[in-house]
């Protein structure tokens, strides 16, 4: 599995935040849904996807 440096993660995180800022709050949910779908097909492993979906939902609060 490819690993990122902390700096690379940081850059990717900032790019995602800036992209979402540009799209505006109204389209943020759809943007994140599309990103999740693209990440799913790229990850390509059903067990991992199951685990990540559960982890993202666990302890979620507003």
């Amino acid at each position, binding site marked *: 599995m490819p690993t990122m440096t*902390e700096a690379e*993660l*940081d850059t990717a995180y*900032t790019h*995602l935040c800036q992209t979402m*800022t540009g799209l505006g*709050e109204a389209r*943020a949910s759809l943007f994140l849904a599309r990103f999740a779908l693209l990440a799913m097909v790229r990850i390509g492993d059903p067990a991992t996807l199951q685990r990540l979906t559960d982890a993202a939902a666990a302890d979620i609060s507003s």
Partner: protein
Amino acid sequence: MNRPFKPYPFTARQYPASLPPLQDGVDKIRRPVVVVGGGPVGYCTALGLANHGVSVVLLEADDSVCFGSRAICISRRSLEIITRLGAAEGFLKLGLPWTGGRSFYREAEVLHFKMPMDENQKHPPMINLAQYSIEQFLLDAAERRSDKIEIRWQNRVTAIAAREDGTSLTIDTPAGAYTMEADWVVAADGGRSFLREALGLRLKGASYEGRYVIVDIVLDSARPAERLAYFDPPCNPGSTVLVHKQPSGVWRVDYQLRDGEDPDEAIKPENVMPRVESLLAMMGENGAWSPVWIGIYKANALTLDDYRHRRVLFAGDAAHLLPIFGVRGANSGIDDADNLAWKLAFVVKGIASERLLDSYSTERVAAARENLGYGTKSTEFMAPPSFAFDLMRKAVLGLAVKFPELRSLINPRQSSAIAYTHSPLNAAVPDAEFSAGPAPGTVLPECPLAIVDGASTREGHLTDLIGPDITALYFTEDGAVPAGLAACEAEMRARGIPFALVPLARSGVAASARGRDYTGRLFAMYDAAPGTLYLVRPDGHVFARWRRFDAAAVTGAIDHLLQP
């Protein structure tokens, strides 16, 4: 709920206005260097110039050191610089050293970070010290150098004429106005720099909307010094709160205003006290406390494009405004001063061309842009500039306990030494021969060693051997130096170039050795073998290195440094 304020545990000396001897309202003497601004950057510049034997007049608009809560963290790199300036004793005695911090999201600890600290270091990665103390210790050192540094209090610059051949300043004081001529002016007059405005120069970059209230309190607490960050804490839901312990029982609390909160209302004591009270209750701090000072802060990430304007050189906040998150404000200004002092001194003394001062701008603008990059990232996390940064931060904080690989996104990216990797001053030497150690442009990694001073030996560190010189660190078996290198030293000295040959011995102790690698770590750290030579600038940055001494190469690298 209002509490009476207490004064800071510090009393500033007040100084009367001073005027130089005048002739027709003009300072009788044209000065080689005038520093405008008596803050940390102004003092460090003046002390650096004095170390190089250059006289300086320092103009300060106020009658004392600063008041209130400003810079509070001094980095290891700044301590190294201040040590060279002969002012570190007070910093190390009073300052509170710390090595890391904790971040909390609601009630859970989500990050415990450590800054680099190992047995090789001379100084802690950071100390906390209030700016009034920082300025006081630097002022004390400047007063010890009254042979070279003349401080004029209550001298406010009201006009400047910057020419190609010099600068005229008009100065107002309670004792009367006067004008003076200077070959060079250092503008260290702070974030609202009058000189920058008067010369029509513009800072460029971003300003952030998120505002922080800054509160200093005195609090009775034995809690150790570390950086504490609370995101969305139960005591102040929706806000971010930072806590720093300072010397003499002072604590600095910074908290973010909620969206839509009115800043003027927010800093009223009756609105501040309950938030501090609930924070202290959440932290379990039950000791007596009193407010000392309240201010407000908005993050800026701005810089001038060029720090040289004719014969005026900008440094510190006058040149760039960095966000507080990551503590780069004062620390980058101290680095500016350290970079500028030797270059300006060399130009004033006529041993280097004016182009050396252009490299001050090149190097420090690049450093500011690197600092701005880190500072912007810290600010985007600490004061999210949009709903997206806010939403993503909430996701990071909520997942960080179970997913440690996300924790680096919370890390405050504290200030660290910057390398001048692409500096025009670095010698064009193929560096591939080395597999470790500081490449040209980098500061010296610290290492303990035995310092040999004639017949006596004491424990010290490598940076103790860097004086106001171009230093040649020559790695040897026993300290013996080839005749060619000694001749090189003699030639430099004959040309008036401050050059120090520092032989480092691996095992033996020839009389000429200045340091001995008693830990056995130094040679490995520098990927050195007997014959390895590093050339180091007066600000501690390496500018050339070779596996073996070659007189023509050394002379060429130094000539390139002085006539870039």
